[in-house]
């Protein structure tokens, strides 16, 4: 068996393991999914009226708020990758794996892939419910694919971050605390209204430097305006850049964790 075959098998086995553990513990993802759906329903129900403002350009508020719900759900799946590694570190399974000839990358990749699959399923559930609520995607099925890709990209960026924190701190509480970064990421942005309606200059500045803003804007573009390439491209570019940073950070932490003292 060559190295690539070995790598594929190791990654598949460890992904399968993460998925089984995930399915056995539904309460690791149900609350997060529930909150995200709650966002969707409550904000759509309560704030729809403000979509009458000219700054919304006639958009449906459901389409406007949907990306917030999708992105907040994605945090759960992506953060799970780091949580799972912390669990392995604490149970000693991580050390056990290190004593086998398992490809080191597979140890990190297994939980990450499982997290991405979880995130895709969650996104499809949210989209399904949004369709039941009357969602129309201006860019058509291709637009749905763009949303999925952006979500996976964002999830990967967040997974990279959570894996890095987990391997760096080797501590469940710290890894948990690390996910709190999701609050400023989601809420210091064009979360509820377009940039033009944000009055506080500090929040406006925060929204402009927050990568999540570009993610929201590109999702909204395909949902509301159709194939407007400007925001879509900047969305992918920003998410790609963030991914590179966090994945590099996680590779660095992983190299340290795998390096023998």
């Amino acid at each position, binding site marked *: *068996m060559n190295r690539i075959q*070995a790598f594929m*098998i*190791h990654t598949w*086995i*460890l992904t*399968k*393991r993460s998925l*089984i*553990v995930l399915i*056995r*513990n539904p309460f690791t993802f149900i609350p997060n999914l529930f909150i995200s759906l709650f966002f969707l329903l409550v904000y759509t129900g309560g704030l729809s009226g403000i979509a009458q403002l000219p700054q919304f350009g006639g958009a449906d508020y459901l389409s406007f708020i949907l990306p917030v719900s999708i992105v907040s759900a994605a945090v759960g799946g992506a953060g799970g990758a780091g949580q799972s590694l912390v*669990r*392995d570190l604490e*149970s*000693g*399974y*991580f*050390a*056990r*794996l*290190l*004593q*086998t*000839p*398992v490809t080191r990358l597979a140890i990190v990749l297994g939980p990450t892939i499982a997290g991405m699959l979880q995130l895709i399923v969650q996104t499809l559930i949210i989209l399904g419910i949004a369709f039941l609520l009357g969602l129309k995607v201006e860019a058509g099925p291709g637009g749905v694919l763009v949303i999925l890709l952006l979500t996976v990209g964002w999830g990967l960026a967040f997974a990279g971050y959570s894996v890095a924190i987990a391997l760096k701190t080797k501590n469940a509480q710290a890894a948990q605390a690390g996910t709190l970064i999701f609050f400023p990421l989601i809420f210091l942005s064009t979360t509820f209204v377009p940039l033009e309606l944000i009055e506080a200059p500090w929040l406006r500045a925060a929204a402009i430097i927050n990568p999540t803003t570009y993610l929201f804007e590109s999702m909204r573009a395909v949902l509301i305006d159709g194939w407007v390439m400007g925001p879509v491209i900047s969305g992918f570019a920003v998410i790609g850049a963030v991914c590179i940073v966090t994945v590099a950070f996680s590779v660095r932490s992983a190299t340290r964790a795998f390096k*023998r*003292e």
Partner: protein
Amino acid sequence: MGEGTIQIKDLVKVYKDGFTAVNGVSLKVNKGECYAFLGPNGAGKSTAVKILTTLSEPTSGIVQVGGFDVKTEPDKVRWEIGVVLQETGLDKELTGREILEYQARLFHMTRRMAKERATHLLEMVGLENEGERQIKKYSGGMRRRLDLAVTLVHEPAILFLDEPTTGLDPLNRKAMWNEIRRLNKKEGVTVFLTTQYLEEADQLADYISIINEGKIVASGTPEELKDSIGADLITFEFKDEEAAGKAAWLLGKSGKIDYQKGNIVTVSIQEADRQVVQLLKDLSGEQIEVARLDVSSPTLDDVFIRVTAEEEKE
């Protein structure tokens, strides 16, 4: 070539903070041998095991396991070894069968082979009825047994056990000993174990090294180590003081009278278990009747206490 063997030459391990955990250890373990590292907490036992099992790198010295260098060929070493650490390494959300099958698959077995191997190992450690339960529902003893089974999935030639029975109740400890003995004697697996318990080393090991503060301070077979502390003791009880007096005079020719009071005589002598027959013959030749006798050998405890005490004096 070096299958099933361990060779260490001048191993030194200095941690980043400057602490020297292992300070010039050399040793050799032959194929099929059971070798014990005996020492108190913090003696450097676990550090040595971590280096031997590729979790840690030596600062200097040569370490070869199964004929491969741990520093340059860690992956080849990993195919040769099985490791049971002090803490079990189990994902407790999985079932016993799942973790065994995954381990087998990670060692490149086919799905069918993995299944068969898992069934066989579950039976071997007496968990055949628990295989479908989640590990988090297992008792401590069951987890240890499963942990050992996971370690044996790829039939390693060398088994490392870091304090394998620490925290186990006497029943589980005995069971673990029997299993280690079976693997070592019946299946020819080379065993390297660390322990704080002298009894454990005495029970299992062919060869023992006592390690203290990162150095081997004494080594030999259990018998050699015990001999090194001195002679055995034989205590005789006679029917009266007069018989005891006569006997003491006679016994004094073969050994050293250690103690004499009333009808009791204790003689200090090498290889008491062999000498005792001759002594009894001598006594009956003189018409001296022995009422009771007791042969006691120095225990490893005595060796251990003496060796570590000598270290402290220095």
